[in-house]
Every structure is written in C-alpha cells, then in structure tokens.
C-alpha cells in the first residue's frame, strides 16, 4: 500500500472525523452524502516505468460543508508527512455559492508518482476500504473511478435505489455483544487519553439463517472486521500481514471447541475480489475426526465485527479521535493482548448467542422439514393408493405433473416454498410485500413496514434491533466496575430476554454509545461490482474463501440489474448499522 491509497485513507478518515466532531448535526443523524474519488494515471515524465497519478476527492454537497477549507488543508497536510504528494485545494472559499443549508461543495487533489502495479494494488485496497466504510455508513456513497492511459472504469459504492420491494428479509441479523473497556499497556507510547477505549463486538451468520433456512450448514469460515472510532475501518500498520499476534492464536478469541470447530488462520486472501475483504479470516476445519465438515464447502460464515470506540466524559476533540485511531492502527495487537480476558469474554458471549440462535434455527428447520416430509408422504400414500382415476388425474393436473414421481417432486417444492415464505416472515425486520397478505393474528406475525420506510427503520432503530442493542449493553458504571476485574460472564452481562431494558447510562456514556451508534450508520456493499456473483460462488469464496480474479480496470455499470442471490450476498453486512443506528435521543 503506497502513497495513493494511504492518502485516500487519511483524507477520508479526516473528513469523516471532521464532520462528526465539527458539524452541528442533529442527534441521531447519519453521515450522509456523496464523494467522488477519481484517479487518473498517465505516464510519468519524471520517473521511468511509473505513472503520474492525480487523485481527486470531491464532494457534491452537504457532507463536508461548513469547513474552513484552508485550515482543513493545513491539518490534512500535517497528517500526511510521509506522502510525497502535492495536496491542493481546487475550490476557493466563497467561490462556490452556498446552498440553502449553508454548506459548500469542495474538491481537493493530490499527485503521486507510482508504479502501475502499485497503483493497481492501491485501487484494490481503496475499494475494500470504501466497502468497509459503507457497511456502517449507509447514506454515504462513493463514486470511484480510475482512468489509466485512457482506459476508464468506475464503480459506485453505496446504497442503491431499489425499485423493488423484497419479498422477504435478506439481511443478516447481528447480535450485539456487551461493551468492554480495553486496557492500554503501559509501554505503549501514545497520547494521554482522557477517556476509555470501548470494544463492542457484534456477530452474525452469513447467509442469515432466516434466508437460507433450508441450508443451515455448519460454520465453514470466520471473518473478522475491525473498526475504530466513528465506524472507520481500521487499517492496521501491519495490514499486509493481517493476522496479528492476537488473532494468530485462534484460541485467544473464544473457545472454538465448544462448538466442535477447529479454526485455523486463513491467509489465502486476495485483494482482487469483489467482496468485502475481512481483516482477519479463519477457516474451519473438522475437529475430532468429523469428516463431514471438511466435505462441506458451502458452510456458513461467522462474521465478527469488533468496534473500538472512544468514550470520554469530556467533549471529544477531532485530534483526540485522530490520535486514538493512530494508536489503534499501530498498537491494536498489544491492546487486545493486554485486554485479552475481557475481550475474549465479550466475544464469547456474543458468539454464543449467535450460534445458539443458529442451533435453534437449525432445530426449527429440521422440525419443519420433518413435518413437511410427513405431509407429503401422507398425500402420496393416498394418491397412489386411490382406485379412483378421476381423483388421481385431478391431482396430477392441478400440479401439472406428468406422473406421480413428478407430482411428488412438485409437492415437496411447493410445500417448501410456502413454508419458507412464512418462516421468513417471522423475521422482525421484514418488509411488507407488494401484495396485501392476510395477517394471521393467531400466529402473531408482526406487521412489517414497507420498503419506503427502510430509512425510517434505520433512523428510528426498529424495535427488534433496539432490543438487541439493549440486550447487549452494559451500564457504563458496571463496565468501570469491571475495569480491573475478570471478563464479565454472560450472567453479569445484560439479560438476554428481549424485554430486558438497558439500565440508564450516564449522560456521557449514553452519548458515547450514541456516537458509536451514529457512526455505525447503515451501509451497503458496493453495487458497482459486477453482479454475476452468485450466492453459491460467494459461499465458496466467502468471507475468507478463495477470491475470483477480477481485472481492476474492468468497467462496470453502476446500475446493473439485481438478481435475488446477488442482492442477498451484497447485503451481507450492509444492514449492520441499521440496527446499530442510534435511538431517537433522550
């Protein structure tokens, strides 16, 4: 990762931190706006076999308005001392008319000379970074374009404007763990923090059991995503060797044997893939001679999100956050090792809940399948035993089957479709269908909002999601009490029951968690990626599986048609921050 990528990371980070700290936004608002990032590379006149890359980052509107532009330029320049880049601001203060909101669009450019291969790598790394940002900032869109020697490609990363309403909930359903305070080793040089680092884990299975309920496979891989303050992806200083010491020891995370899993680090991660690249990836291998796991490549992926946020009793300054971010990128491993017991306890608790849900879902699915088999076999028994030809004929004709074998196949299929449909409708964050369906009050199915109120769900924090958030939360006072203690056990953590409510937080604690939640705004994986990726391919490649080689310069349509299986995968984690979005204010 060279100059271009580093510069883009730093600039974007700076912009987001600046926005969060300096712009007066209403509480609960999500980061919103569009950024254009374009890289143009031409043969360098100063270096042989190198490209002169001009990178432009521009904002179309309200995202970063109100900044003092020159001050920003100065500050950002100071954070990029190692970049031999020429950083310019191409829009003067006041030269652009302000819109009604009093904000100003801006554009900044920097130039770097790089080898072509380095540029290609940088572009891939940037794309992954953008994907990770929009996973937790759903209202931010990035238009990333690259032009090298006349060859142009562009991709859009961000929430699409869906024209269709999903017929069922295809989101993952993360479980939020309880936050824990991290300990900073004494020998870690750094700023004097006037606050605490809080780690909040979140875990989910992908694909969601609610979607692939008929394919509740074993866990075949584990993917970990690391986020720093304000939902910014952590780019570790050892990013090229993403598996730090802490994560290399797989048992440091949780007790995998409890789930009959043998986890080994997966270093076979390639940049040139259209999917979100995890920061840490593990592969599940069979344990205790269980061969079926090895033979089942299409298992589910356990997604683990580790959010490290900064909490302080005082108003947090921009540079303070910047410093925390820097601290984390360079010393995350040491911090996690120092906080090993609390980290492990919190992650274990979270994963326990997810896998318990998975287990329960698998059991429910098994029961459902068993019942359907009994129903189908019973019908077949009557059909094949009947001596009344008119009855048999009528049955076959009704399902358009040529014979009883085909009839049985169709019977299985239609029963499965009908029951899966209803099974998915028990998801608490589902959307209403286009066709009005009769509500079954006996079943107690919940009334679901329509697609147009998806943002409303994201913004107002749907009840089910809120319950999950509350379930995992600990009072700040309790966290402090546990500061020097062992890792909190699940019994000490917030109760699991949905009706449990979080104990009232201190104002600063509440604000911190809200800030944390605001940072984790909903986001979607890029749709600019070519949408040929099928669910099967994704599971094969998966979060941590082998990648599919893909030319970086390949052009793609920003509005490719959506296929259900593609949408499913692309929404892998995109709903993450929807349920982490803040509650409407005290």
């Amino acid at each position, binding site marked *: 990762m060279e100059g271009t990528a580093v510069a883009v990371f730093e600039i974007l980070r700076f912009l987001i931190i600046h926005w969060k700290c300096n712009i007066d936004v209403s509480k609960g608002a999500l980061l919103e706006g569009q950024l254009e990032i374009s890289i143009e590379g031409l043969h360098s006149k100063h270096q042989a076999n190198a490209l002169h890359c001009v990178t432009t980052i521009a904002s179309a509107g309200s995202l970063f308005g109100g900044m003092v532009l020159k001050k920003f330029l100065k500050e950002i320049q100071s954070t990029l001392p190692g970049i031999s880049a020429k950083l310019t601001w191409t829009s003067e203060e006041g030269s652009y008319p302000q819109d009604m909101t009093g904000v100003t669009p801006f554009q900044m450019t920097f130039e770097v000379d790089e080898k072509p291969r380095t540029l290609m790598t940088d572009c891939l790394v940037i794309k992954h970074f953008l994907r990770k940002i929009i996973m937790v900032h759903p209202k931010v869109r990035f238009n990333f374009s690259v032009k090298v020697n006349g060859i142009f490609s562009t991709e859009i990363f961000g929430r699409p404007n869906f024209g269709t309403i999903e017929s069922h909930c295809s989101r993952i359903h993360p479980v939020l763990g309880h936050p824990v305070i991290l300990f900073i080793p004494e020998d870690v040089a750094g700023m004097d923090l006037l606050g605490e680092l809080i780690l909040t884990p979140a875990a989910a299975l992908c694909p969601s059991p609610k979607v692939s309920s008929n394919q509740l496979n074993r866990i075949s891989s584990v993917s970990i995503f690391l986020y720093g303050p304000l939902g910014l992806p952590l780019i570790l200083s050892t990013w090229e060797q993403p598996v730090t010491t802490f994560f290399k020891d797989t048992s440091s995370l949780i007790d995998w044997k409890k789930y009959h899993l043998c986890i080994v680090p997966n270093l076979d991660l390639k940049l040139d893939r259209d999917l979100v690249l995890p920061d840490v990836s593990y592969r599940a291998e069979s344990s205790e001679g269980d061969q079926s796991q090895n033979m089942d490549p299409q298992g589910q992926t356990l997604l683990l999100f580790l959010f490290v946020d900064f909490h302080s009793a005082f108003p947090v300054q921009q540079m303070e956050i910047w410093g925390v971010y820097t601290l984390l990128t360079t010393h995350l491993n040491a911090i996690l090792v120092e906080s090993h017991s609390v980290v492990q306890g919190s992650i274990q608790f979270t994963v326990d809940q997810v896998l318990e849900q998975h287990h329960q879902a698998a059991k*429910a699915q098994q*029961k*459902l399948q068993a*019942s*359907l088999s*009994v*129903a189908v*076999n*019973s*019908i077949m*028994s*009557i*059909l094949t*035993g*009947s*001596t*009344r030809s008119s*009855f048999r004929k*009528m*049955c076959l004709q*009704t*399902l*358009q089957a040529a014979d009883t074998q085909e009839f049985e196949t169709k*019977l299985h299929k*239609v*029963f499965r*479709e*009908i*029951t899966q*449909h*209803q*099974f998915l409708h*028990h998801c608490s964050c589902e959307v209403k269908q286009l066709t009005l369906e009769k509500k*079954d009050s*006996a*079943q107690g199915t919940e009334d679901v909002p329509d697609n147009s109120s998806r943002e409303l769900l994201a913004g107002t924090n749907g009840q089910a999601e809120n319950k999950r958030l509350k379930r995992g939360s600990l009072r700040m006072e309790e966290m402090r009490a546990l500061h020097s203690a062992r890792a909190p056990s699940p019994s000490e953590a917030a109760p699991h029951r949905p009706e449990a409510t979080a104990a009232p937080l201190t104002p600063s604690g509440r604000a911190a968690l809200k800030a944390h939640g605001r940072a984790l705004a909903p986001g979607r994986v890029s749709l600019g990626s070519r949408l040929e990726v099928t669910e099967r391919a994704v599971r094969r490649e998966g979060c941590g599986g082998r990648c599919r080689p893909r030319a970086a310069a390949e052009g793609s349509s920003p509005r490719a048609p959506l296929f259900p299986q593609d949408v499913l995968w692309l929404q892998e984690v995109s709903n993450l921050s929807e349920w982490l979005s803040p509650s409407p204010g005290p």
Partner: protein
Amino acid sequence: MAFAPMGPEASFFEVLDRHRESLLAALRRGGQEPRSGGSRLASSSEVLVSIENIIQDIITSLARNEAPAFTIDNRSSWENIKFEDSVGLQMVSHCTTRKIKSDSPKSVKKFALILKILSMIYKLVQSNTYATKRDIYYTDSQLFGNQTVVDNIINDISCMLKVSRRSLHILSTSKGLIAGNLRYIEEDGTKVNCTCGATAVAVPSNIQGIRNLVTDAKFVLIVEKDATFQRLLDDNFCNKLSPCIMITGKGVPDLNTRLLVRKLWDTFHVPVFTLVDADPHGIEIMCIYKYGSMSMSFEAHRLTVPAIRWLGLLPSDLKRLNVPKDSLIPLTNRDQMKLDSILRRPYVTCQPFWRKEMEIMADSKMKAEIQALTFLSSDYLSRVYLPNKLKFGGWI
C-alpha cells in the same frame, strides 16, 4: 321366558315397570330421538371419497400458492355446546372453528399428523381392517409423541368428516364389563351370553356390529367402579334381582361402553340406573353416561341416554342411613372445584333433585364411596340397599 326365573317375585318390579311405562310414554310424546347432525355411520366408499376430497382441496390450495389448512371445529369449547334435555350435550350447528395451518411453525406438525392419520385411515378403510387408537399411536410413537395427540386428532377427523369413529375403522379399546340377562351375536358370528355366576363378559369392540340382542331385563344398572361391580358379582346380584343387566365402564367410560348402554336403551327401552360413589367424580361419570362429554359432544346423539336415573349412592342416603363420619371423606379442593363446575353446567338446571343432592354434598363438605355402606354389613349393598331402592323407586 327366555331365562329360568331366579330373582324376586313379579311384584318386586311394579315400580320399575311403571317407571318404564312413563319412559315409553315420554318417548312416544317426544317422538324418536333426533338423529340429525353430528356424526353418522358412513360407508367405506363415502369415507374414502371424503378423504380424497380433502386431499384435492389441499392440492388446489398449493397450486394457487396458498398454504393449505384444516378447519377444525372447537369441540371442547363451551360456546360451541348446547344442552337439550332429550339429547344431552351436543355441538351447535354453527360452531367456532380453528385453523391448522401448514405454513405456521406452531401448527405445521399437527397439520402433518392429521394428514398422516388420514392416510392411515384411508388404508384401513380400503383394506377393510380395523385398528385401535393405541395401534395407531404405536405405528410411530416417536412421531406422535403421546397417545393424547392421536386421540384428539382422531376425534377431530371424526368431527371434520362428520362420520363416526367406527366408520373410520378405528376402534376404541373396550375396558367395560357386562353381566346379566343378555345375549347377543357379534359381527363375526360369536354368540355371547352374559348370564353368569362370578364372571363378566368384556364389552365388545364392535357395538354397531352386534345383533340379535335378547333380554328380559327389568333394568340396567351402570356401576361406576370395577370394585363395586365385582362385589355385586360375588354377591350374585344379577341372579338375586334377575332379570337385570349390570355394566361397568371401570371409571370414566370408554366409547364402546357408552355405545352399548345406548344400544340397550334404543333396543329395549329398559330403565337405566347408575350406582356411583357419592362424590363429584362419580356424579361426573354419571353425567357422561346421561348427558355426554364435552369432547364427544359431536357424537352425543349416539352416545347419551338422557333417561338415566341416579339410583345411588345419594348424599342424602348418607344421612338417612346414619353412615358414621369416619366412613366419610372430606371434599378436597379439587372435589370442590369439580362440584362447582358440575353445578354450573346447563343440564343441572333441569334436574332439581340432582342439584339438591349436590348441594347437600357441598354443604356437608363430605363425600363417601359406595363401600361406606359396608359399615352396616358387608353385603348391605346387594342385600338391602339396592333391592330397596329398586323396589320402592328410590331413584332421582
């Protein structure tokens, strides 16, 4: 006479004969008992077609991408049950229903089990074989879980198809016994003579199939408990008060026992009396014979004998006979609740004497078993109590 006279002289039965006349007169006044509604005896082909129609409906729903569901009457809901003096408890014509859906996680299993049992019934009817509910349960006990599940589904199917359980080729296991002045021929040609000494005959499993019933009995005595029944057998009661018929369901009666009592009434219109313990449980058992049960209300017209009279043990008998207190048992909380429940039932309203007896029990807060009469003598029941009751009309 079909049988050699061993019992009392003819004058003994004068009151009984008058009672029988009054019953017959009431029958003539009211016409025959209505046979409308509820289940009926259906032919095999009718049952097969009914089941096939259900399957067709399911397939049609599936073809329309709609989740099929069974609509089941709420058999055990008081709002769906009415009381008629001539019939007893029976289901209303337009009763509330519930749906057993195939696309609900809560009910998909029951939906499947109903189909499973329907397919088993289909095979039984097609092959003209029979099975008991127990047999069905044991075909796949793991799938069904417990016998109650099977029993309820069979009743639901019977109610849904409006055919008798017998028509579904499902037998209920008989546990009842019968003794006395009765003979008949079973469906398979077996001749049965219930006249006996110390032994009784098991109630047959195919009541609808028995024919050529013959009796001279002056009365039918339904005995609640097997212990009392055996005691009466040992005391040669059937011969001492011959001609008569004794029957027991050994507690809560099974379907066949109830069907047999009903058949005896329909065939001979012989007065039917009950001998139950003077406790709420005994009264409830008596009510089942007379008025029917909630769960089987859809078959009430085939099972109930509203003409039944309460012979003993009456709570007022306890006082009259000076039964000592140490032979009495205090009512438990459960007894109290059951007694209150019976008093609230619609049929008690038209039985003021029964109500009065139950109020005596409620006031005294005491109950007694029939065996309490042994304080007078070991054979007081068969030698004194019952003969006096029957001779002098001591029934209500």
